[in-house]
Structures are given as structure tokens and as C-alpha cells.
């Protein structure tokens, strides 16, 4: 069974997914950061594949992408680093990457590599649903990869239903009209949107991302969904860290405390 399915079958609330950029802050930190995220009690690891033009990301993640690229991170290097990671990491791992580097690597080779190293799912923010259905769905399925779509407050009910129909992992709810890291705190308006989607009784679990940074926002988001995704706030934590394992553990503990 895919680890993402297994997770959501067994845990229905306060699921925490942590995004980090591969090769950041240093090229060789990838596995170390993953181990620390698992040790800190998160449920899903989302590895960002750095890209030169991340249009859905705000300054913090743009910055980590640039540093990772300057460090020499690439798809090839990442797959090298990920060889054998399943000996240490047992929680679900999702790759988040923009479409162009994946296409240049070759979609089939990419899916094959993902399966080989033990990746469970993909988030490709600029892969539109129709393109996915037309060109890539069968490949993803062949290699056992769960595809995650994003929805935002602007996404129509009809489209949310279509997305729900065409995925079987989880739905990534973008919390506001925003790129990553743009806002902090959760507003009344956002809660109305969370409730609206909650009441749609979708078949897929929902994780809320963008603007989640601490125990308070995590707890609020979890009230209206199965959990949340933290990205920019985590990147800020690791950016100038002198002791990654310790700082990550402390940060995750602060988020997960009730």
C-alpha cells in the first residue's frame, strides 16, 4: 500500500507535512533534514526540487531554491542522494517540483526513479489537470505515485469536484490568494473557505498550506481539515541553523504542542 494512503487510513487529524528545499542550506543536508523532520514528529516530508523560476513561491522559497541551485543541486544529484533513504525514513515522502526540470529529465525516467528510491507522491504546481489526465496519469499510476492537486479560494466547486475525482492521495488547499510565505495568521474569510470545502464531503483528505507557521495556525487549520503543510516558516528555521537536527526538532515540537 502507498504510504500516503496508509497514513490517512490511520490518522485523520493534525497531519503535519513539512516542505523543505533539497540541497538547502547545504548540498549534503538533504537526508539529514529528512531524518530530523521524521524524528520531530511530522507525518509527511515534501522535498522541493529547486527551480530557477518558481512562480508560485514567495521570497523565502525563491531564496532557498536559488541557494540550493548554487550549491549544485539538480534532479540527478537529488536522486543520487535519495538512494537508500528508505533504510532510515519510513513516513511518506512527496516530491514537489515545477514541470520543466521534470520534462527535461524525462517524465517516464523521473517516475521510474521516484519509484526506485521510494517516493510516494508528486506535487507539480504548474501541471494543469487536463494535461495530467491527457499525458501523464497512466505513468504516475504505473509507478505507484500519488498526484496531488492544489485548490485555492477561487477554485469553483465544480472544479474541486473534478480534482477530487482525479486524485486519490490528498488535496492541497492553498489557504488564501497568495504565493507561499505571503501572509501570516488565519482570517475569518479563510475560515469561511475552509468550512465551505469541509462541507463538500470530498473523498480525499485535505491538507491546508500557505501561511501556516506555528502551533496556533497549525491547530486552526487542522480544525477544518486533516492537517496542514508548513514550508516558508520551516525554511526560515533551517536557513541560518548551526545545528540542524536540534533546531528542526525544537521547531516541530513548538508546532505540534497542543
Amino acid at each position, binding site marked *: 500500500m502507498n504510504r500516503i494512503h496508509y497514513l490517512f487510513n490511520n490518522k485523520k487529524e493534525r497531519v503535519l507535512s513539512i516542505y523543505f528545499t533539497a540541497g538547502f542550506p547545504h548540498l549534503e543536508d538533504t537526508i539529514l533534514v529528512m531524518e530530523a523532520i521524521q524524528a520531530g514528529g511530522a507525518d509527511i516530508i515534501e522535498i522541493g526540487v529547486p527551480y530557477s523560476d518558481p*512562480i508560485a513561491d514567495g521570497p523565502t522559497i525563491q531564496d532557498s531554491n*536559488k541557494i540550493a541551485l548554487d550549491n549544485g543541486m539538480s534532479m*540527478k544529484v537529488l536522486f543520487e542522494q535519495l538512494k537508500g533513504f528508505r533504510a532510515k525514513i519510513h513516513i511518506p515522502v512527496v516530491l514537489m517540483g515545477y514541470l*520543466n526540470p521534470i520534462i527535461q529529465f524525462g517524465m517516464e525516467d523521473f517516475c521510474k526513479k521516484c519509484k526506485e528510491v521510494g517516493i510516494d507522491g508528486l506535487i507539480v504546481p*504548474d*501541471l494543469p489537470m487536463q494535461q495530467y489526465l491527457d499525458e501523464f496519469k497512466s505513468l504516475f499510476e504505473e509507478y505507484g505515485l500519488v498526484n496531488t492537486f*492544489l485548490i*485555492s479560494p477561487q477554485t469553483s466547486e465544480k472544479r474541486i469536484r473534478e480534482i477530487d475525482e482525479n486524485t486519490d492521495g490528498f488535496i492541497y488547499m492553498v489557504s488564501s*490568494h497568495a504565493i507561499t510565505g505571503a501572509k501570516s495568521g488565519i482570517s475569518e474569510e479563510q475560515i469561511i473557505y475552509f468550512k465551505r470545502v469541509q462541507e463538500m464531503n470530498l473523498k480525499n483528505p485535505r491538507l491546508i498550506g500557505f501561511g501556516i507557521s506555528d502551533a496556533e495556525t497549525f491547530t486552526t487549520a487542522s480544525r477544518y481539515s486533516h492537517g496542514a503543510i508548513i514550508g516558508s516558516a520551516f525554511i526560515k528555521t533551517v536557513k541560518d541553523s548551526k545545528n540542524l537536527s536540534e533546531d528542526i526538532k525544537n521547531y516541530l515540537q513548538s508546532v505540534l504542542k497542543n
Partner: protein
Amino acid sequence: MIRVDEKGFYGKFGGAYIPEMLHPNIEELRDNYESIVASEEFQQEFQLLLRDFVGRPTPLYFASRLSETFGAKIYLKREDLCHTGAHKVNNTIGQIILAKKLGKKRIIAETGAGQHGVATATVCALMGMDCTVYMGELDIERQRPNVERMKILGAKVVPATSGSKTLKDATNEAMRQWINNPVDTHYIIGSVVGPHPYPEMVARFQSVISEEMKWQLKEKEGRENPDLVIACVGGGSNAAGAFYHYYNTPDVRLIAAEAAGMGISSGKSAATTVLGTPGILHGSKTILMQTEDGQVVEPHSISAGLDYPGIGPVHAHLFDIGRGEFVAVEDEDAMKAGILLSRTEGIIPAIETAHAIHALNLIEYRSDDVIVINLSGRGDKDLETYIKWGGY
């Protein structure tokens, strides 16, 4: 037949590869723009503004001394005489009327050389709309006069500080801001790039260029079709406008002049069709300059308007099927061509446009060929670059 299909593709290129957060905006535009643009009401307002505000039709000028120099019949399509100094305003007029009809209150735009930024700021002032223009930090430095023009017109100019700090990064930033403000904001893209329907929409607004060329040539030469049309290509909006009504007339050769920068193999170039490979940039599948790993390469050109790592999907298609002939013009040669035009015809061209002039040295043609060069913009904004170069 060269035309966009219903999914937004020209052959293998185009489409809408966008984050889901932009889907509603793009869908709204895609579902409404054709009917709005086709409406009598839109057309009346558009045509009136093109005539009385922009100053269309722009002349098709027979350049006799240039013709003598090169040994062909050369006409210049004088887009440099458009209000604001370049063809860019044709598109911004169209899009601002569209934005109004869609009920938008705010406009955002990206700009490279600043011509599209100025054209956007101008139509926003005309319509009383709030305007923010994203511009690479490097371009802000090298196109100072245009930055000040935008500010005088009441626009806010926001520097894009990531990456190469040029047009590509300004486009990224504008897209991010559109994601942040999806409801009340329209994004006026300045070139035939971006997700469907932008490339076709912008090309249609610019197609007035070749529409006029046809009847003007008929008057002057007794035939609608030239033998060659030459235009410079960064993203490719002026070229798309100049080629549009000739796409499907194979007798008309379509010549696209790209920026070779300091030389194709110098590592400082923007010659996309030479150095690029298929990939995805700014929401469409096209040809772009990238590393083996799919990271977008920082381009270089002396002209900010051509300093872009991709080309519009329609141009990628023209290249792919061999319908368009692409030539690469180096910085130095473009500057010299700018001086040549200044001295033979009394027209100082934009440095972008100067690339199209130099293309005459790189292609074969017959002495009785009728050639139209799209004179996309004037050189006022580039005085500082001409002065710094100094070779005159």
C-alpha cells in the same frame, strides 16, 4: 494552416501550464475574450482609440536611401510613430478595454525595455485605472527615462530583484502578484508569451500591423503581399503582428531577428532558436534557453526588449516547421545598423528594431524583392546606450 487550436497550441507549442491558483483568472479570460473582442462595442472603442489616441494607421514608408544601400525595395512600417514610441500600445489599448469589460479595477504588467510598461501606464492613465509595473532591477538602471515616464503617468514601478533582474524575473514577479490578487486585477502581458489565451490575444491586438501593411502595399505596389517581412523577436509581439496576416501565405518569407548578444557561443546571448530547446516558460511550452537540468538560463542582449530566454509559442512553431527564417544579430552589429538607419533615413531606431535592420546583411534576397521591415520602436529610450557604445 498556422493557427491556435482550442487548447491553445500552435503545433507542439503553447498551452497553459499554470499553478491552479491562476486557473480561475485564465479561465475567465479564455471564456470571455473572444466574444468581447468580437463585439461591435469593443471594436468601435478599440478602432477609435487606435486612430485618435495611438495615431493609426502608421505610415508604410518607402526607404529609398536604405533601398539603394541594400539593393532591394525596402519599406518601413512605422510603428515607431505610434503614441509612446513603439508598437506595444496596440496591445495595451486592446487589453485595457477588455479589462474594463471584465470589471477589473487594477492593472499589473511586466516590462523589459520599459516600452510595454510605458504603454500600460499610458492606457491606465487614459482609463483611470490603478497601475503597477514590475521591472527587473537591471532594466530599471538601463532604461531610466522610461521608468520616469511611467511614474509621471501615475504608475507604480516595482523592481524585480531575483535571478538576472531582467524581463524574465519581472514576468515571474507579475505572475506572483496576479496569484496574490486574482479577483480585481488584470495582468496585461506585453508579448506573445504566457499561458493561453495570452499569446493569441496579444498577437490579434498586434495584427493591425500586417492588416495595414496589406492595404498600404496594395496602394503603393499594387499587391498586398511583400516578398519578405522582417521583424525582431524577443518574446515576439511586433513580429507576430507583422507576420499575422501572412502566416498562411507561403510566398511571403517571414524573417525573425533574434539577439545574439555578444555572440552565440559567448555565453552572453539571447538567440533562443539557436541555443534553446523545447520546455516550459511562463506558462507555455516553447523553445527556451535552459541547462540540461531544465533550469532557465540568464540571457543577454544589449537591448532590454530582446533580453528574454524564450520566444512566444507561435514563433517556436514557425521555427519548428521551417515557416520562419531566424537569424541571430550580435550587439555590435545591431548598434551599427541603428547608426546606418539614422544616417540613411533620419530615423534613430530602438536597439531592438536595429536588430531587424541588420538582418538584411544575413539573408539572401533579390534586387526586385519588396521587403517590409517592421520598425517597431524609436530610439529615444536608448540614447544612453547609444552614447555609452559611442561608435558613431
